[in-house]
Structure formats: structure tokens, C-alpha cells
């Protein structure tokens, strides 16, 4: 089913939209450690996965499992200790505009208005062209901030800031968008609105997206593919294909049997990983974890 055709009527059609390139990122046997010798700490160990083209891949894992480190590697701010990361077969060696990162909390420039923030990328590359200015207007309209174009980020609400940031990233037409817990810290109402909003933006272009989160509902609502991370040192423990229909709607997704099944599956894996990190090698703690798991497994079968 093609989601593009459904929303087309609501979209302004006079601005020529840039063509989205179907890109793919391959992470091959990547490891990353910090420090040296005795103080060496391995954060990511022999991690391999693919961010598939035209799909929204969501990565979820316990906090401190190396998700943010992985993002810095994908963005090219840091280099892996071992292994390679390739974008369409080309090795990533540094930051580039083909992969844009939307950060935790807001990284909008507080000294620029919403409009100037969105135009930052084009101006930085000396592409202050009529087409890009038109695109900025289109995106402002699209994220519902036309009336706030001359406001500074501190004058916007949390949800508006995130929307402005999405627009600032999209104007650069990156091949891949990388989002590091972008909706963290929003209240649950604006968060749910942002999910619908963001998945709508994705459904329009089907740009390759990589989205990192710790929120299971967020992950299932958004994902085409769900990668579940292990405890530190990070690896992809499990990949779940979330074959829910698009466009996604809140009421629908959380009533759907398939969605609930995916959630249970993901939660049980996450649970095991969280337990491992909880016990941390201690005998007493692992005994507790074992007893606890048995009890909750018994409760589950009783429920069914």
C-alpha cells in the first residue's frame, strides 16, 4: 500500500520538492572503546546491522548501552576502533551533510530566528538560492511554524522547537536522517502528537531514517524495523519487522493485536537485557533476577 497518495491533496504542490535518494547504511563488525590499557572501556562490541533504504529503522535499548556512541560514529564525529560503516558502499570517514543528526533536546541556535535556523544549512554552503528560500517557506508551513518564523528558539514551546529542528534538518535533503531521542523531555501529549507528525513526514518522502529511543511505545509506533540493543558493550540482539500499515494513527496502533504482540516480544528481550545490567555479575543479584524471572513467567502463563 502506498501512503504517499493519501496525503497528497493536503500538501502544497507549487514548491518543487527535492528528490530523496534511497540510501542505505551498513554497519559492519563495529567496535568502539574509550580509554586505554587498564582503563579501557568497550562501549560497542562487534556490532553489525543495516539501516535499510526507504525505511524507518528504530533502535531501542537500555540506557547506557552505547546508542549515543553509535550515533556519533554514524554521524562521523568519532571513528570506530574496529570495523567499518558504509553509506551506499562508501566508507564514512567524517561528518557530512548526507547524514544529518537531530539531537536530544534542542540544538537550535538560540541567536537565530526560526527562519534563520532553517536557512542555516543552505547559507553555510552558499546556497541561499530562490529555490532554497522557497523550500524554507514550504517547510515552515509544513511544520506549522509560519507564524513563528521571526521568533527565537527560547520563545518556542518544546514541541515547536523539535518541529523547527526537523525542518532545519530536512531542508538539507540528507540521504539519511539520524535522530537521537529527539522527543525526550516532551510531555506525553506533545510526544504523541510529535509521533503522528513525524511519521507523517516520513510517509511523505520515505527517506531513510534512523531513530534511537528508550521508549517502547514510541519505537513501535514509528518503526518499520525495530533493532533491539543488548546491554553494554552494545550489539544488536534482535531485529523485529514491524509490518503495521501506514499511515499510522495512535488509536489504531495501540489497539492492534499485531502491535501488542510486537510490544510483548520486544519487552521480554529488553527485560532480559535490563536484568543482566542489573545483576552486573553479582551472585546475589543474579539469584534475585532468576527468581524474579521465574515468578513473572509464571504470572504470564497464568494470565494467558
Amino acid at each position, binding site marked *: 500500500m502506498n501512503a504517499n497518495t493519501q496525503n497528497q491533496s493536503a500538501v502544497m504542490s507549487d514548491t518543487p520538492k527535492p528528490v530523496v535518494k534511497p540510501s542505505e547504511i551498513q554497519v559492519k563488525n563495529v567496535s568502539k572503546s574509550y580509554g586505554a590499557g587498564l582503563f579501557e572501556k568497550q562501549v560497542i562490541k562487534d556490532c553489525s546491522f543495516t539501516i535499510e533504504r526507504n525505511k524507518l529503522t528504530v533502535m531501542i535499548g537500555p540506557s547506557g548501552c552505547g546508542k549515543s556512541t553509535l550515533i556519533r560514529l554514524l554521524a562521523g564525529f568519532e571513528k570506530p576502533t574496529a570495523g567499518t560503516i558504509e553509506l551506499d558502499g562508501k566508507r564514512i570517514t567524517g561528518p557530512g551533510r548526507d547524514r544529518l543528526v537531530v539531537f536530544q533536546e534542542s540544538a537550535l541556535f538560540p541567536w537565530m530566528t526560526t527562519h534563520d535556523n532553517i536557512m542555516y544549512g543552505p*547559507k553555510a554552503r552558499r546556497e541561499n538560492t530562490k529555490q532554497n528560500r522557497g523550500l524554507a517557506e514550504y517547510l515552515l508551513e509544513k511544520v506549522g511554524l509560519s507564524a513563528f518564523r521571526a521568533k527565537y528558539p527560547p520563545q518556542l514551546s518544546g514541541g515547536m522547537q523539535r518541529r523547527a529542528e526537523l525542518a532545519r534538518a530536512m531542508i538539507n535533503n540528507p540521504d539519511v536522517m539520524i535522530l537521537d531521542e529527539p522527543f525526550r523531555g516532551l510531555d506525553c501529549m506533545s510526544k504523541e502528537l510529535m509521533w503522528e507528525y513525524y511519521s507523517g513526514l516520513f510517509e511523505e518522502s520515505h527517506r531513510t531514517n534512523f531513530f534511537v529511543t528508550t521508549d517502547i511505545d514510541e519505537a513501535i509506533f514509528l518503526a518499520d524495523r525495530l533493532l533491539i540493543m543488548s546491554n553494554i558493550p552494545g550489539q544488536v540482539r534482535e531485529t523485529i519487522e514491524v509490518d503495521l500499515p501506514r499511515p499510522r494513527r495512535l488509536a489504531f496502533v495501540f489497539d492492534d493485536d499485531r502491535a501488542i504482540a510486537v510490544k510483548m516480544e520486544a519487552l521480554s528481550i529488553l527485560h532480559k537485557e535490563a536484568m543482566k545490567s542489573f545483576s552486573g555479575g553479582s551472585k546475589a543479584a543474579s539469584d534475585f533476577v532468576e527468581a524474579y524471572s521465574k515468578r513473572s513467567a509464571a504470572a504470564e502463563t497464568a494470565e494467558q
Partner: protein
Amino acid sequence: MISKRLTKSLFSRSNLRAVIAIFVFLVLWEVGSRSKDWFGFPMPWVGHVPPPTAVLVAWYGLLGDPGYWQSWYMSTLRVLAGFLAAMVIGIPLGLFMAVNKTFHGIVFPSFEVLRPIPPLAWVPASIIFWPTQELSIAFVTFLGAFFTIVINVLGGAKSIDPRFFQSAQSMGSSQWDVFRRVVLPATLPSIVVGSAVGMGITWEVVVAAEMISGGGGTTGSGGGLGFFIWNSYVGGSYEQIVVGMISIGIAGFVCSELLRKLGGYLTPWLRKR
């Protein structure tokens, strides 16, 4: 519409409170310094200070005196010269120390040793080193603002959120572009604060330097407000001492207020919404 808003802001509660507070202060001062005539005993401390009405009379007499205005002119000129030099040298120095580690490593240690030396301790040395008295006063004034500005700019530029650099980089910014559109505006609030504090110190320093060096003008009263106060003290005119003191207060207040206004204009994103 505009005049209505102006009246409203002029007669706002806080302004009214300020006016009343100053008025009450003046009344208490007047009563205190005239207590010997009125009640037969002098109040401690204020009893020896000329009353505000006498100061006003002395001030009125000075308004037509070109020497008094010459003092204003000389002090303001020195403050501006020292302050502008401190900005022109201090801001680039602070920024460069923040972005270049090697430069920071070379300059910062000597900077930190010189910084705690009070500007007034430099007075004798600068009188010896600089060819004219005017230059040595301006130099001491410069020092007053210089260290404050540099340390503020350096601190401001060093505490910029690294995510700003990462975003800029991944959107395709060149290094110069990052400096111009990220480092500079992100440091601007610290530049404004450093300048405002530096301006205050500049007025403190210029007056003391003028007192010590004895003025640099051709006529006896041409040595700035600091010299004006000292001269009044030597001449025994206590009213004029107070006139000089209040003049400096007004000058410092106006300068700081202008800087604050300019700073607010330059950093519109910090304004209250």
C-alpha cells in the same frame, strides 16, 4: 499611542518607587547635615558632610565654569580611549585563546599572573614607561577593563555547547562560517557582560589615576573629574568634592546604561518575551 505608553512606563510603579527612595535619601541627608544648626548637636558622620541644598548651589555655580566641563570631557575621553582599546585588543585575544589551544597555552599563564595585579599598582610603572602623562592614565584605564573583558570572552567562548559545532559541521559549515555564525554570536552575551563590568572598573580606575598623577591638562583644572575632586579637597571646598563625586556617579551610570541598551539590541534572543 506611543506617548501613552511612554507616560505609562515613565510613571510605572518601579520608577515611582525609585524617585521616592532618592527623595527620602536626600531629605535624611539634608536633616542629618544640618542637625547642628537645627537641633544643636551634630549627627555622627553626616554631620560633617555638606547638605544637598548647599551642594546644589555649588553645582549651579559650576555649570557656567568651563573648567568643570573640561574635567568631564577629559575623564570621559580617557575612559573611552582605555575602554575601546581594551575591547579592540581584549575581544580578539579572548576569542583566539578559546579557539586555539597552542596560543592559549603560551599566553594564558602570563595572563593569569598579570591579572590579579590591581590597575592602580600599575600607576607608578606606567608613569615611568609611557612618554606622556595622558598615555599613562589611559593605559591604567585600559588595564581596568582589559582583564575583565578577556576573561569573560574566554569563558563564554569555551562554554559553548559542543552540539552547536556538531550540527553546524554536519550541515556543511566551513571553519570560518562556524566562527562567524556560531562562535561569535554564542559569545556575544559574555562580551556584553564583560564590557559592562569593565566599563564600571574603568570609571573607578580613571578617577584614582587622575588623583595620583595630578592631572594632565595645561590649566590647573583640566585634569579630569578625579583631579577636580582632589583639587577641591586641597582648596577646602567640600561642596565641590560632593559635586565631583556625584558627577562620576552619573557618568558611570549613563555609560553602563548605554552599554546595557546596546547589548540588549545586539542580543535580541535574550530579551524577555
